């Protein structure tokens, strides 16, 4: 194979795809649109939060039932104030005085513990005209008042421990029953498990997205070549192997560029959002390190098979149907993901590591979930199998490609196809 010719085909195919409006919109427009959308949402939220922050955080409390424990209040410039969770609750003797301060805008709301509170349980919440009804629901003021009332009601009437449990009935401590007995699960471990299962899933979906996106371009380009009848001109200049390799590299580069732009955005957002998370969980670096190699090998293997079979189709729709089988084989690990996550190094995981259709995704999942259970020779071996399979699939693919490329009308029998491809 001549590198210069492969490079010429690859450059042409790459340029043909990346100049298309549909590609530019999908690659750059979509992330920009999503960034604008999320920017708008975040911007709007920030604006309203800022506005809310600018509002008074002072609330009035009138205790007509005389049940509130005054111990939490402190004297400040002639008034009694309780400060909790950045809220200031001012105690008023009468509701008239509180209403005046509410009208003047000093207070956001006034809570009146009604005289018959003990029998009715009613606490009147009065808001100003400007404050939307129910807007207090999102604040911490009402839970604070509830706990203050609960504490006030039981204070001195129960044993200290019972009093505490009435106020805070339960703290849940989570644990798992494993082979070594029951083990307490910390929050870090729960997060780690989440990340360990999320990342393989995320990597798998990204791999498949890249693969299916790039192979979509492959199917499209073969259909274009067949429909535009340029095949004979190409085959009179370059070998089927060179065309196949050029298309694989060119369109693979276009697919990977798209993938890189998308994942860069996702990674950027994820890193920004989870800077704190990353400090407490372990990122599966081994899986991330081998992912690009497996991406490329998997793409070349499946892509060459897809190109060859796509060439057998009479048009784009037929080509897509013919190539669907390869895509189904590639997503097999995702179909059995539950088993793989549960038992990454079980017999299923071990077998799928050596099958070139499933090995890229399986190795990534196994490394990400439990890297100690997969031997280095398994990783290297699966790559070697994938490499050899890629070479074989390119050779067979190129022969089928030559025959399929020139096919018109009805599909010949498999025997005839094989005879022509020899």
């Amino acid at each position, binding site marked *: 194979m001549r590198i210069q*010719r492969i490079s*010429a085909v690859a450059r042409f195919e790459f340029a043909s795809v990346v100049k298309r409006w549909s590609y530019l919109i999908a690659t750059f427009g979509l992330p920009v649109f999503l960034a604008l959308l999320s920017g708008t949402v975040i911007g709007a939220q920030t604006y309203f939060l800022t506005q809310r922050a600018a509002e008074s955080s002072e609330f009035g409390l009138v205790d007509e039932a005389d049940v509130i424990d005054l111990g939490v209040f402190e004297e400040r410039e002639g008034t009694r104030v309780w400060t909790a969770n950045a809220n200031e609750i001012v105690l008023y003797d009468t509701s008239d005085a509180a209403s005046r301060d509410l009208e003047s805008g000093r207070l956001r709301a006034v809570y009146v513990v009604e005289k018959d509170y003990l029998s009715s349980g009613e606490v009147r919440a009065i808001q100003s005209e400007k404050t939307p009804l129910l807007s207090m629901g999102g604040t911490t003021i009402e839970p604070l008042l509830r706990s203050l009332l609960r504490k006030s009601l039981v204070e001195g009437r129960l044993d200290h421990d019972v009093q505490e449990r009435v106020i805070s009935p339960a703290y849940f401590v989570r644990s798992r029953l494993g082979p070594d007995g029951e083990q307490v699960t910390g929050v870090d471990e729960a997060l780690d498990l989440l990340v360990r299962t999320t990342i393989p899933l995320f990597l798998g979906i990204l791999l498949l997205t890249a693969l299916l996106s790039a192979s979509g371009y492959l199917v499209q380009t073969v259909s274009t*070549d067949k429909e535009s*009848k340029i095949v004979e001109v190409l*085959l*009179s*200049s370059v*070998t089927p192997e060179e065309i196949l390799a050029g298309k694989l590299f060119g369109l693979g580069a276009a697919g990977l560029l798209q993938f890189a732009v998308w994942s860069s955005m996702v990674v950027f957002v994820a890193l920004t959002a989870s800077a704190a998370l990353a400090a407490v969980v372990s990122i599966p670096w081994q899986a991330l390190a081998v992912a690009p190699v497996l991406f490329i090998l998997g793409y070349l293997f499946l892509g060459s098979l897809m190109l060859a079979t796509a060439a057998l189709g009479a048009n784009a729709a037929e080509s897509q149907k013919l190539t669907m089988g390869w895509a189904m084989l590639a997503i097999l690990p995702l179909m059995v993901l539950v088993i793989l996550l549960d038992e990454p190094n079980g017999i299923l995981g071990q077998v799928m590591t050596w099958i070139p259709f499933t090995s890229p995704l399986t190795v990534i999942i196994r490394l990400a979930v439990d890297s100690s259970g997969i031997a280095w020779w398994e990783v290297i071996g699966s790559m070697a199998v994938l490499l050899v399979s890629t070479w074989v699939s390119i050779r067979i693919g190129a022969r089928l490609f030559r025959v399929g490329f*020139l096919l018109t009308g009805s599909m010949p029998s498999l025997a005839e196809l094989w005879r022509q491809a020899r």
Partner: protein
Amino acid sequence: MGILAYRGVSKRFGKHSALEDVSLEVRPGEVFGLLGPNGAGKTTLIRIGLDILRPDDGEVSLFGAAPEPKTLDRTAYLPEERGVYRRAKVRELLAYLGRLKGLKRTAARTAADHWLERVGLSRVADQRVESLSKGMTQKVQIAACLMTDPELCVLDEPFSGLDPVNVALITSLIEERRRSGQTTVLSTHMMHQVEALCDRVALIHRGRLVVYGQLDEIRRRYSPNEVIVWTATDLLAFGVQATLHRAGGWRVELPPSVTPAGYLNELVRNGVLIDRYEPLVARMDEIFVSLVSGGR
């Protein structure tokens, strides 16, 4: 030795035999006509010659050896089923096809510009192919074919869809190739172009080689032994079996033993004043129809 030679080549697709034991060669510097009705096997023969298809039996040699990528760089092919990337720009498409034939990037662009100039399409160099007319697109394809200055150029129906001016342009380009010693294989149904351009021809019918050889010799071989004599003399008065020809002269059918030259001598000896004398030579379209319909 042939620049392109087939020896006993056969090819079948399923149960259909596309070519059967075809042997012929194309010589350096000639314009070789590949003739035959639709579906005769011409395209299959061309594809096998350019290593696009492989024969089931027989051998092919290109520049004296089995076709290989290196020798294919010395050839160019304009298929009957015209193919272009319709969304590509004209110059880009030509440069790309030049690169596939082994030209360096700069050389490919220079050759593209040069050949667009030659076929009168410089003004559309930056337009997309889809914006061109059918004739213009065809000229782009011919430019793509000739831009690498190939030693062997295979043109399948290069005149179809072209107006007379462009037919003349392509004809002159083919003649120019012959003058410079380059070889052209011309597959066409336009028999007057075959007569005007080809040195030798092969006629394929139902996958078999029916006629093959020097054009003049074939025309003579299939010509009737007749002459047309333009004279003021009444040939019937001389006792000659003649009929009036539509071109104005007398059409005389000669006995098999008499040649046109011998008959001319005889007329002159007998004192017939001859204005013009022409042996009837079969036209290629007549030979084509007679061989093809005769086989049906």
